[in-house]
C-alpha cells in the first residue's frame, strides 16, 4: 500500500504512483496527463520534496504521497536540519566513450551501433529510473539514478529522447479526466479503468474508446470532463460526445530540450524523433496555454497588442514556459501564436538545464567545501587550547585563549609562533641574480650569502601585491619568502615571468615541505642556546644552517614582533619534535605560544604593514610609505615604468601611523579633518606596552597636503612616526 493523502492505495509490481492512484479510482490531477514526465500535472510531494512527478515515481510499500497544492505553491520546508548528511545522496563520476540518452527504438539502435564500434556505452532511460539532468560542455552528462547522482564524462553524447505529445489548448483543458494518446495506451494496458473514453485526433491503440469526429473545440464538465465538443470545419456544426475520459492524439514534436542543450557541443548529436519536426499546432484561440504560469490565449494576445512581439518577450511578459514543465506544454502553442503574427515559426527559446528537477541536496552531492590547509602543528595547537581561524587558505591559531600571557611572553620572556604557512621558494640557476633583479624593485646582487633583505613584490602597474624576504644561500641560489595568503599567486608569478623572460632558473616551492617556527622575545637566544644553538646564532637579517634540538634548521634572525626573533625553517616531518622541544626546554622561562590575534598587536606596535590588510589593491610603494624599498636607479624591474609615471603625480593618499588615547577605533573607522572624510583605519590595537591605542590608516590629501587635525570617532588622533614601539630596535 501507498498512502495517498490518507487513502491507502494498493499497487502492483512495476507501478508508478500515477498508475496506482488512477487504478484505485482516484484522479486528483487536472489537466491532460502525459504519463511521460513532460507535463506539470501529476506533481506530488514525497518525503518533504515537492514537484515530484507521480508518473516518474515507482510505487513502493509505505510511501507517503501528498498531492501538490491546487492553487498556490507548496510551503517552504521547515528550517530543521534533517538528521542525515550530504552522504545520504549517492554520487559517482563515470567515464565512458558514449552516452546515449533515451532507450526507445532509436536510442537502443544508437547504443548497439556504438558498442559495435567498440565504444564503452552508458545508457540513460528515465522510465528505468536513470534520468538525464542536463548536458554540459565536456561533454558531460549529469544523471540521477536510483543510487544518487552521476556525472558522466564521455567523448560522444547521443540524444534519443523521442517525441513529446502535443497538449490540447481549448476551454476546459484543465479539467480532470484528460489523457494524451500514449498515456491512455499505457494506463489502459496497466489496468486503469478509463470508463467511457472518447478520443479526438489520432485514436489510441488497444484502448476501448469512441473516436470523435471533427476538430477539438472544448471540454465540458464540472471539475471533471463530461463532454468533448468538436466542430466540423466544413459545416461549422458542433458535435458533443459524453465521456468519463477524454483522450487526445493531436500530434507531437521532438522532445528536444537535451538535444538543443547539446547542440554545438563537440561530440554531441541527436537521433530519431528527438531530431524531428514539430507538428505545428493550431494558433491558440481560447483556454489555458501555459498551466504552470496560468497563461491563457487571451494573455498572449494582450501582450502582443501592447508590443511584446518576440517569443522571448512574450515568455518574459507572461512567464509562459518558466514554470515546472519549462515550456514542455506551452512552447509549441506559443511558437504557433508568434508565427500567426506574420513571422516564421520561431525556434524554441534557449534550452537550459535542468531537464530533471533535482534537489539542492542532490546537486551538492559529490562536491566539497574548499579545503583549508593545516600545518604539521595543527594537533599541537588544539592540545594547547587554541581557537583556530581561517587565514589565507590555512587554519591557524587565532589565540590560545590567554592574550595577556601570549603578549607578555613575547615582550618579556620567550614565545613561539607557528609560521609554517609563510610562502617559501628556492630559486637557483645561472640567471638567478638577473631574474630576481627584474622581479624585485630593490638590488639583489650585492646581497651576500647568509644575509637576507626585505622586498616588495610589485605588479606591472607598480602596485604592491606581496612582500617578503630574499635570502642568499650561495652564488646562484636564493630562498624567497612570501605572505601566507599570497604564496600561491607568488609562485605562479615567479614561474610566469621566468618563462616570459626566458630565464635559466629552477624554482621549487617549499611552503608545504618546510615548517617554520618563530622563536621570539628577549629570552629567545637563551632558549635556543639550551637546544644546542649557543654561539652560532646569526646576526640580524642573517641566516645560518644548524641543528636545534637535533632538528636540522635554517635559522633566520628577523623582527616582525619588535623583539629578537629567530625563525626556524625545518622539514615539516620534524615540526612536532621541534615545537615540543621548544615548549619543554622553555618551561622554566615561561615559554608560551602566541596566535594571530596577539601577533597582529605586536606587529602593529612595530609599525609593520600586512599586505592585503593595510595595503589596498592600488598601493604604490610611495603611498605605503615604502619608497625606501624601491631603487629607481635600477635599469629595470617589474612595475618600474608605472612607478616612474605615478611618482610624478601628486600624492593623493598615504598610509600613516596614528595614536589615540583610550580604546582602539574599529578597523574601518573614519578619519575626519575639519569634519570632512579624510581616510580610514586599516588596523588598530590597544597597546599594552604603550598604554594607548595605535593604528595604521589611509590619510587622503587635502589641498595638496596631509596637514590638519585628524579626528577619529570624535577623538583627536596624533600622527606619529613608525614604529610606535622601540624605535631604536
Amino acid at each position, binding site marked *: 500500500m501507498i498512502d495517498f493523502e490518507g487513502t491507502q492505495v494498493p499497487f502492483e509490481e512495476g507501478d508508478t504512483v500515477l498508475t496506482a492512484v488512477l487504478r484505485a479510482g482516484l484522479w486528483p490531477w487536472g489537466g491532460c496527463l502525459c504519463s511521460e514526465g513532460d507535463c506539470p500535472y501529476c506533481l506530488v510531494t514525497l518525503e518533504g520534496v515537492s514537484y515530484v512527478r507521480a508518473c516518474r515515481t515507482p510505487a513502493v510499500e509505505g510511501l507517503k504521497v501528498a498531492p501538490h497544492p491546487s492553487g498556490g505553491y507548496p510551503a517552504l520546508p521547515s528550517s530543521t536540519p534533517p538528521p542525515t548528511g550530504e552522504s545520504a545522496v549517492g554520487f559517482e563520476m563515470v567515464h565512458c566513450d558514449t552516452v546515449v540518452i533515451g532507450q526507445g527504438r532509436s536510442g537502443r539502435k544508437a547504443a548497439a551501433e556504438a558498442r559495435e564500434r567498440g565504444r564503452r556505452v552508458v545508457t540513460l532511460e528515465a522510465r528505468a529510473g536513470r534520468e538525464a539532468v542536463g548536458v554540459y560542455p565536456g561533454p558531460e552528462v549529469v544523471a540521477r539514478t536510483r543510487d544518487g547522482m552521476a556525472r558522466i564524462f564521455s567523448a560522444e553524447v547521443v540524444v534519443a529522447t523521442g517525441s513529446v505529445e502535443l497538449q490540447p489548448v481549448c476551454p476546459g483543458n484543465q479539467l480532470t479526466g484528460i489523457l494524451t494518446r500514449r498515456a491512455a495506451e499505457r494506463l489502459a494496458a496497466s489496468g486503469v479503468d478509463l470508463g467511457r473514453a472518447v478520443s479526438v485526433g489520432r485514436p489510441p491503440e488497444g484502448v476501448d474508446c469512441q473516436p470523435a469526429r471533427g476538430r477539438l473545440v472544448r471540454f465540458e464538465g464540472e471539475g471533471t470532463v463530461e463532454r468533448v465538443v468538436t466542430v466540423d470545419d466544413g459545416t461549422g456544426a458542433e458535435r458533443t460526445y459524453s465521456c468519463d475520459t477524454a483522450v487526445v492524439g493531436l500530434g507531437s514534436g521532438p522532445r528536444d530540450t537535451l538535444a538543443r542543450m547539446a547542440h554545438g557541443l563537440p561530440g554531441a548529436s541527436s537521433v530519431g524523433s528527438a531530431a524531428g519536426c514539430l507538428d505545428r499546432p493550431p494558433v491558440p484561440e481560447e483556454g489555458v496555454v501555459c498551466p504552470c504560469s496560468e497563461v491563457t490565449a487571451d494573455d498572449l494576445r494582450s501582450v502582443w497588442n501592447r508590443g511584446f512581439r518576440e517569443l522571448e518577450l512574450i515568455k518574459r511578459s507572461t512567464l509562459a514556459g518558466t514554470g515546472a514543465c519549462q515550456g514542455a506544454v506551452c512552447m509549441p502553442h506559443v511558437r504557433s501564436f508568434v508565427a500567426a503574427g506574420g513571422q516564421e515559426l520561431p525556434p524554441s527559446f534557449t534550452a537550459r538545464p535542468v531537464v530533471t528537477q533535482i534537489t539542492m541536496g542532490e546537486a551538492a552531492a559529490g562536491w566539497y567545501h574548499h579545503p583549508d590547509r593545516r600545518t604539521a602543528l595543527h594537533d599541537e595547537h588544539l592540545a594547547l587550547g587554541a581557537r583556530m581561524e581561517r587565514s589565507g587558505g590555512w587554519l591557524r591559531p587565532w589565540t590560545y585563549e590567554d592574550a595577556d600571557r601570549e603578549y607578555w611572553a613575547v615582550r618579556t620572556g620567550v614565545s613561539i609562533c607557528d609560521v609554517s604557512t609563510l610562502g617559501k621558494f628556492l630559486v637557483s640557476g645561472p640567471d638567478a641574480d638577473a631574474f630576481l633583479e627584474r622581479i624585485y624593485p630593490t638590488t639583489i646582487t650585492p646581497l651576500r650569502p647568509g644575509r637576507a633583505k626585505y622586498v616588495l613584490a610589485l605588479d606591472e602597474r607598480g602596485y604592491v601585491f606581496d612582500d617578503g624576504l630574499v635570502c642568499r644561500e650561495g652564488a646562484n641560489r636564493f630562498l624567497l619568502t612570501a605572505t601566507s595568503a599570497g604564496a600561491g599567486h607568488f609562485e605562479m608569478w615567479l614561474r610566469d615571468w621566468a618563462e616570459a623572460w626566458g630565464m635559466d632558473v629552477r624554482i621549487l616551492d*617549499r611552503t*608545504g615541505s618546510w615548517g617554520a617556527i618563530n622563536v621570539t622575545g628577549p629570552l629567545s637566544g637563551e632558549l635556543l642556546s639550551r637546544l644546542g644553538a649557543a654561539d652560532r646564532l646569526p646576526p640580524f637579517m642573517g641566516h645560518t644552517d644548524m641543528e636545534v634540538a637535533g632538528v636540522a634548521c635554517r635559522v633566520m634572525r628577523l623582527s616582525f614582533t619588535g623583539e629578537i626573533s629567530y625563525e626556524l625553517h625545518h622539514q615539516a616531518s620534524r615540526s612536532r619534535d621541534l615545537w615540543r622541544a621548544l615548549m619543554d626546554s622553555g618551561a622554566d622561562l615561561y615559554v608560551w605560544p602566541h596566535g594571530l590575534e596577539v601577533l597582529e598587536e605586536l606587529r602593529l606596535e612595530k609599525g609593520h604593514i600586512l599586505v592585503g590588510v593595510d595595503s589596498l589593491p592600488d598601493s604604490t610603494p610611495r603611498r605605503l610609505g615604502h619608497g625606501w624599498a624601491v631603487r629607481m636607479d635600477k635599469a629595470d624591474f617589474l612595475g618600474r615604468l608605472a612607478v616612474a609615471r605615478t611618482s610624478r603625480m601628486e600624492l593623493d593618499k598615504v598610509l600613516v601611523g596614528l595614536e589615540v588615547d583610550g580604546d582602539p577605533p574599529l578597523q574601518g573607522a573614519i578619519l575626519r579633518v575639519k569634519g570632512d572624510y579624510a581616510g580610514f583605519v586599516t588596523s588598530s590595537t590597544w597597546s599594552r606596552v604603550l598604554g594607548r591605542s595605535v593604528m595604521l590608516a589611509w590619510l587622503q590629501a587635502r589641498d595638496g597636503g596631509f596637514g590638519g587635525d585628524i579626528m577619529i570617532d570624535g577623538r583627536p588622533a596624533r600622527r606619529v612616526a613608525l614604529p610606535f614601539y622601540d624605535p631604536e630596535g
Partner: protein
Amino acid sequence: MSAPERFERLEATRIVAAPGALDEIDSPDGGRLLRLAPDDLLVLPPPERVEVADPYAIIEPEAGFSAAWFDRSELARLQAVSGWEFPVRCPEFAQGHLAGVPVKMLFDEGGVLVLVPAVLAHHLEERLGLGERAE
C-alpha cells in the same frame, strides 16, 4: 583490509633541474622516479646520494607529501570521485584531483600509491572515509 587507514607523511627527495639532467637519472634499486614536471623529479625513497648533471640543480629532502597505498580492489571507489579517467596501462604516473583534493597517483600492477599534499591529507582521509571502516 585493502583500504589504508590513513595517509602517512612520505620521505622522498625532490630534484628540480634542467630537464636533460633529470632524463639521465636512473631509477634507484627498488625505488621510484616520479616526474612531476619536465624540470621536477620526486625520488622514492630518498636515495643515499644522487648525481645530477646540472650544477644548479635543487636537491632537497621532500616532506610536503603524505601517501597511502590502495589495492587494486579500491580503484573503482577512487575512480568514482575522480573527474578524470585513470590510465589503463601500468606502471603509470598521473596527477589530478581526487574528491576535490590535488593528488599524484602512481598506478602499479597491485594498486595505486596516492600522494597528497600533507597540508590537505586530512581532507582526503575524511572524503575517502579512511579509518571509518576499521572502527
